[in-house]
């Protein structure tokens, strides 16, 4: 049991931090521009595919640096020539634009790289178990993912709270019109934030590709969960996104690890149900079976009881 808890904790944190890298970009874009970027996870996928192709010729480490930059540039171009143009027809048009973009990117990826899973592997110097606990390995690559994610979090926090750019971004998040009145080039800030957000998603893809598989469905698998994090954490709050990511990561991991059902809970109170009861299926549903819906349940509860999210301070 100790083994299960220890590893679930570790895995939960790794998953959570990976989600954070995606969510941090999305929450900044969402709060600043009001655009729910449906294509955000697609940039994550592009990061993985770019890095895969680069790693074939130049190795993993070059891909780690170059792929996120490429994805970031692509994101900036999409903002400058796509979103900004569509913006004049309002938020709905922007929403539909990113929605279409997500499909477009998925089809293009399938067109270029094919439909099968790509053999994108960890670099060889990270292919060893970091430590073994109760006979179970913890791969060094997972630790590497941990370090990178924490590094990104600290870096982002420092930029946003300690630098001049961060101040302007913070201002643009809360009062975009006022910031523009004060003479700051808000569209440029938007483009920069969108690009950096996409680059972060790309970086997440680069390091997640070898661990979680590089295939055309990878954006779809992660896409919806990132929105949950943004809403649960609260708009525009980096700390909120961080806490919510860890929360969702741990929630998902532990839900799979612990084989409990409503029945077990009821038995604690000495309530038992007839085996023929019509509701039998409901009581015997185990935690791993409902694990995939738990984040969405949390999303609904948060929207009902605390619409601003855990750390949010803006209503819209």
């Amino acid at each position, binding site marked *: 049991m100790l083994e299960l808890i220890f590893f679930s904790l570790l*895995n939960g944190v*790794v998953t959570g931090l990976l989600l954070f890298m995606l969510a941090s970009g999305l929450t900044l874009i969402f709060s600043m521009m009001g655009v729910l970027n449906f294509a955000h996870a697609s940039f994550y996928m592009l990061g993985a595919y770019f890095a895969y192709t680069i790693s074939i010729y130049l190795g993993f480490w070059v891909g780690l640096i170059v792929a996120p930059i490429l994805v970031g540039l692509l994101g900036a171009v999409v903002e400058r020539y796509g979103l900004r143009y569509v913006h004049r027809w309002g938020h709905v048009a922007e929403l539909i634009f990113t929605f279409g973009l997500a499909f477009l990117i998925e089809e293009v990826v399938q067109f270029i790289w094919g439909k*099968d*899973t790509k*053999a994108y592997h960890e670099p060889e110097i990270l292919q060893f178990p970091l430590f073994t606990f109760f006979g*179970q390995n913890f791969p060094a*690559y997972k630790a590497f993912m941990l370090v990178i994610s924490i590094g990104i979090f600290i870096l982002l926090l420092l930029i946003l709270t300690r630098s001049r750019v961060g101040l302007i971004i913070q201002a643009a998040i809360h009062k975009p019109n006022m910031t523009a009145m004060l003479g700051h080039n808000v569209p440029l800030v938007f483009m920069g934030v969108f690009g950096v957000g996409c680059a972060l998603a790309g970086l997440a893809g680069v390091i997640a590709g070898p661990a979680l*598989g590089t295939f055309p469905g990878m954006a779809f698998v992660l896409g919806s969960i990132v929105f949950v994090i943004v809403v649960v954490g609260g708009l525009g709050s980096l700390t909120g996104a961080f806490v919510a990511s860890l929360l969702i990561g741990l929630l998902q991991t532990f839900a799979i*690890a612990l084989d409990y059902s409503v029945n077990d809970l009821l038995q604690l109170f000495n309530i038992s149900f007839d085996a023929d009861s019509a509701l039998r299926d409901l009581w015997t549903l185990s935690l791993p*079976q409902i694990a995939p819906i738990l984040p969405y349940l949390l999303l609904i509860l948060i929207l009902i009881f605390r619409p601003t999210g855990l750390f949010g301070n803006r209503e819209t």
Partner: protein
Amino acid sequence: MKLKTTILISAAVAALTAFTAQAADTIKIAFIDPLSGPFAATGTSGFKQAQFAADMLVNQKGGVIDGKMFEIVGFDNKISPKESLVQLKRAIGEGIHYIMQGNSSGVANALTDAVKKHNDRNPDDLVLFMNYSAVDPALTNEKCNFWHFRFDANANIKMNALTDVIAADDSIKKVYIIGQDYSFGKAVAAGAVKYLGEKRPDIEIVGNELHPIGKVKDFTPYATKIRASEADAIITGNWGADMVGLAKAIGDAGIESPVYTYYAANDGITKTIGASGKDKIRLVHEGRVNPPPTDEYKAYHMAFKEKYPEADISQFRIANALVMLANAMNQTKSTDPAKVAMALEGMEYTTIQGDKVVMRAEDHQLMQPISISVHTDENIILDADNSGYGLVTEKTISAADADIPPSGCNMERPAS
């Protein structure tokens, strides 16, 4: 004016007769499978294998009945049962009497019903259905019909072979079953529990888990659970990205127990699993690859790789289906599906891998040896995905299907 009309008519007639003359020389076989969409990788690979087998094993050997050639025509069903029925109608409209399909038992169930209905209503325009890969046992049991022939071993036969191997290994005391949450995953789990219970009641099932299909992004929590359960063997029916993810997580967690699978090879899976699954991942399947069972097969495989370097012969049964069809036509000297179907019933055939296979007459299930192979990079002559890794056959069970007699198959044969 009149002259012009005459010329036009005679030209049309000439064109028509030329067309029919050509049509008489080819026997079209409709290949109804996903040729686009998320499952296209498997569908198009099968299509290539069918075209290659028809070409190499039938047409280049002189065709059937005095030089008629096989032509495989692709029909994209996007893996939807509804779309498959539309494509079936199209194929019948083009005068095709033989159809092949394999991906998804859901599609096969729809097609076998539609073919039966069509044949009941149109006894002069019959259609024969060759199922090369849909393994739902029901297709040859309660849902069997005279026009359906299955060339793959059904899920129960494979599970029977697989549990034979597990039962013979005394070091296995605990087994973990994990699969995708849908009909096939559940059938695999139910089969494993049933056969292990009969053969080795002392084996403890330490986990029987279903996960959402195609939605799990990280299999590490499952691997942690499997490790904590101290299972000596793992059984899974997973395929596609779910198989890759599971194999990777198991490798990363350092689990050394063997993983028995149905579909952990080819179409990019072998390459992606690579070193992390070496000597661990095992596959239960028909046909053998390494060591190549015969020189004839080796030459056939190499010729295929030369023509399609990016693809692999992942479904050898496709070749068996086409050659058996050709043999049935030669035997009856007819392309009438009713006569061909009668000849296929009970037909014996020695494959180019040297295996004797029999089409069981009672339920139209092909009886064939089943192999258990291991994923490795040693002693690989014919690799998969050009990765250096491939399957080496460890054990071949010759009569895994004999233990599983047809059950509930009550076939109506056409009166002749």
